C-alpha cells in the first residue's frame, strides 16, 4: 500500500514529529501518489505497436509527485547535510577547503558548460587550450615532464599511474609482481595495486611515523615493480627519507608512485619531480578546491616522469599545425583509454580558475597557511589531547586516544559528541598505525577565529571526558535528526535498495 503520510517520528515530542527547523522527511518513494505528476502530458495518440513484444509489462516504479513536493523534498534533505559552506570541515586526509565562487562562475560560462565532448576539435579550441594551460601548471608545479589528464578521481589516478608503470615494465620484457606499500598508506593504494594483479607487500612505519627505511630496503628485489607512497603521509608528516627511498627503488629497477592526495601541504614549495617521483596523481578536487568534487565528479590527473610518459593513456592534447589537437591513437605504446573523452572538464575549469586567481605566489601561500593552521591546531590541543608523533606536522594534526585512556570514552563517542556541537567530526581510526586515531586537517581557508572556536569545543569535550562524564558521550549525539545509528547492523545486514511493500511481501 502506498501513502502520502508515512508514520511520524513520535520521539520528537511534537505532533508533527518535526523539531523546529529540523523537518522529518520520508523517502521520496513513500510519498508516491499514483497518477500525480509535475507535468500535464497529452494522451498518447493511437499508434501502431512497434515494440515487437518488448513493451514494458510492469510499472516503471517512479513515485507520483507534484513538482513542489520534489523541490521541498530535496531542499529538506540538503538541510540535513553538513557542508564546507557552513563551517569547519576538519576531515583529515580530505583537504576540505573553501571553494571560491569564482570557480563556479567560470565553470558555468556557456563556452565551457555547454560543450559536447564529441564536437569537432576546430570548434572547441578554447576548451583544449584550457586543458593544455592546466596541464602546463600541473607539470610546472610538480617539476614533471608529462601529465595524463583523463583520470576521473584520486583512485582512478592511482590506477592510471600503476597501469603506466606496468606498461613500461612489460615493454622492457620485465614483468614484476610485488608493490611495496607503507602501512600508513591510504587504503586505495594497496587496493589499486591488488586490483591489477600485484601482490601488496606492506612496509612498517618507524617510531617517527614514517616509512622504516631499513625495512623498505630489505624488501626490495628483482620482483618489485615499485612502491606507492603518500608524501606528506597520512600521519601528516613529511617523509624525509624520500630521496633515499626513490633512489633505492630505482636501483632495484622499480618505479616510484607517489600518492599526491596531500599535495596541498607542499604545493609551490616542493616539486615531486625533484624527489624522484615517476608518477603522482593530483586531486584537483582537493588541492585546487571544490572539495570532494562538490558532490560531483572529482578529477585526478597523473603527472609522469620521462620514463613513463610514452605509456600514458589516450587521448591527450597536443599543439598541432592548426591549433590544438587531440591524439586519439598512438604508435601502440600507450596502455589505452581510461575513460570516455578527455577528462572531467567541470573540474578542469574550476581548478584552473583557482590556480589563475591565486597565481604562483598565492599557491605558495596556500601550502604555507595550511601547514601553519594545522600546527596551530596541534599546538593548541597538545595539552588536552595526545599528539601521536613528536615534532611539528604538515597539513594535518594526528592524535591518538591516549588522552581518553581510563575515561570509558572512545574516539567514536568523542566524534559523536562533536556532531552535537555542530561540527563535522575529524577522520577517526585512520591511519591504522595510530591507536584510536583522530586526524584533523583544517586547511588554509579557516581563519584564526574559526579555528579558535573549534579548538575551544575540542578542548571542552576532552575535559568533559576526563571529568568522568562518560555517560554523556555514550548517549551522543542528542541533537541530530536521528540519534546514534547501529553501524554494526548496517554493515552486517545492509539494506541497499528500497523496495515497495508488495515486493517485500512477495519475497518473504
Amino acid at each position: 500500500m502506498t501513502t502520502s503520510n508515512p508514520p511520524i517520528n513520535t520521539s520528537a515530542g511534537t505532533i508533527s514529529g518535526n523539531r523546529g527547523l529540523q523537518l522529518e522527511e520520508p523517502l521520496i518513494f513513500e510519498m508516491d501518489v499514483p497518477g500525480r505528476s509535475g507535468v500535464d502530458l497529452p494522451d498518447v495518440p493511437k499508434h501502431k505497436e512497434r515494440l515487437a513484444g518488448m513493451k514494458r509489462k510492469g510499472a516503471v516504479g517512479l513515485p507520483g509527485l507534484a513538482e513542489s513536493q520534489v523541490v521541498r523534498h530535496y531542499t529538506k534533505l540538503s538541510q540535513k547535510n553538513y557542508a564546507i559552506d557552513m563551517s569547519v570541515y576538519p576531515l583529515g586526509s580530505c583537504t576540505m577547503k573553501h571553494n571560491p565562487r569564482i570557480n563556479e562562475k567560470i565553470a558555468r560560462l556557456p563556452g565551457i558548460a555547454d560543450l559536447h565532448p564529441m564536437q569537432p576539435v576546430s570548434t572547441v579550441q578554447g576548451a583544449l587550450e584550457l586543458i593544455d594551460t592546466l596541464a602546463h601548471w600541473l607539470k610546472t608545479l610538480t617539476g614533471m615532464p608529462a601529465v595524463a589528464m583523463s583520470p576521473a578521481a584520486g583512485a582512478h589516478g592511482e590506477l592510471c599511474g600503476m597501469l603506466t608503470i606496468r606498461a613500461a615494465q612489460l615493454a622492457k620484457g620485465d614483468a614484476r609482481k610485488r608493490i611495496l606499500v607503507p602501512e600508513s598508506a591510504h587504503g586505495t593504494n594497496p587496493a589499486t595495486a591488488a586490483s591489477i594483479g600485484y601482490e601488496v607487500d606492506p612496509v612498517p612505519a618507524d617510531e617517527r611515523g614514517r616509512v622504516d627505511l631499513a625495512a623498505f630496503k630489505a624488501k626490495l628485489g628483482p620482483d618489485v615493480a615499485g612502491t606507492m607512497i603518500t608524501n606528506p603521509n597520512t600521519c601528516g608528516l613529511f617523509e624525509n627519507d624520500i630521496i633515499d627511498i626513490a633512489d633505492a627503488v630505482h636501483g632495484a629497477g622499480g618505479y616510484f608512485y607517489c600518492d599526491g592526495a596531500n599535495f596541498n601541504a607542499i604545493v609551490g614549495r616542493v616539486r615531486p619531480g625533484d624527489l624522484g617521483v615517476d608518477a603522482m596523481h593530483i586531486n584537483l578536487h582537493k588541492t585546487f578546491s571544490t572539495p570532494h568534487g562538490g558532490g560531483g565528479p572529482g578529477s585526478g590527473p597523473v603527472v609522469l616522469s620521462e620514463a613513463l610518459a610514452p605509456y600514458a593513456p589516450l587521448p591527450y592534447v597536443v599543439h598541432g599545425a592548426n591549433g590544438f589537437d587531440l591524439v586519439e591513437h598512438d604508435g601502440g605504446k600507450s596502455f589505452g583509454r581510461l575513460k570516455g573523452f578527455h577528462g572531467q572538464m567541470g573540474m578542469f575549469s574550476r581548478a584552473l580558475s583557482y590556480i589563475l586567481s591565486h597565481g604562483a605566489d598565492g599557491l605558495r601561500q596556500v601550502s604555507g597557511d595550511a601547514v601553519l593552521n594545522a600546527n596551530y591546531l596541534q599546538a593548541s590541543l597538545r595539552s588536552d589531547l595526545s599528539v601521536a608523533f613528536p615534532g611539528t606536522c604538515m597539513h594535518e594534526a594526528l592524535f591518538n586516544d591516549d588522552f581518553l585512556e581510563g575515561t570509558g570514552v572512545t574516539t567514536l563517542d568523542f566524534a559523536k559528541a562533536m556532531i552535537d556541537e555542530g561540527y563535522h567530526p575529524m577522520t577517526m581510526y585512520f591511519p591504522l598505525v595510530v591507536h584510536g586515531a583522530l586526524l584533523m586537517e583544517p586547511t588554509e581557508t579557516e581563519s584564526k577565529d574559526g579555528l579558535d572556536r573549534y579548538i575551544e569545543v575540542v578542548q571542552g569535550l576532552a575535559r568533559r571526558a576526563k571529568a568522568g562524564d562518560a555517560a554523556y558521550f555514550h548517549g551522543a549525539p542528542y541533537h541530530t535528526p536521528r540519534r546514534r545509528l547501529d553501524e554494526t547492523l548496517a554493515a552486517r545486514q545492509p539494506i541497499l535498495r528500497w523496495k515497495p511493500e508488495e515486493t517485500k511481501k512477495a519475497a518473504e
Partner: protein
Amino acid sequence: MSGIRFSKDHEWVKVDGDIATVGISPYAQDQLGDVVFVDLPAIGKKIEKGKELAVVESVKAASEVYAPVSGEVVEVNAALGDAPGTVNEDALGKGWFAKVKIANKAELDGLMDEAAYKTFCEGLH
C-alpha cells in the same frame, strides 16, 4: 607441542596432530571492535607463514590476518559468513578462521605461549 600459541600479529594457533586451527586473539577482536565481514581463503590454498591468510573487517578497519604457520588450508569456518560477530563473542573457540595442514612444525617454536602473549599485550597500548 600442545596448548595454544600466539603470534605477534595477534593470531592464535591450536595444534592437533599436523593440523593447526587458526584464529585471532581476544585482544585483536577487542581492538577491531564489531567484526562485520570475514574473507576466508579457499580450501587447498597453500599459505606461507607471515603472509595473508584471511581478511577481517570491522566497523573501524579492514585488517589482514597473517598465517602463523605455513601449510595448506584444509578447512575454513564458513559459519563466519553469516555470523561474523562470532569472532567477537568467542575468538578462541567458535570464532576460528581456518585449519591448516602444517608444512613445517619448527615454525611453531617462534610463537608465544599464553603467558608470554599476555605480557606482550600488556606492553602494547
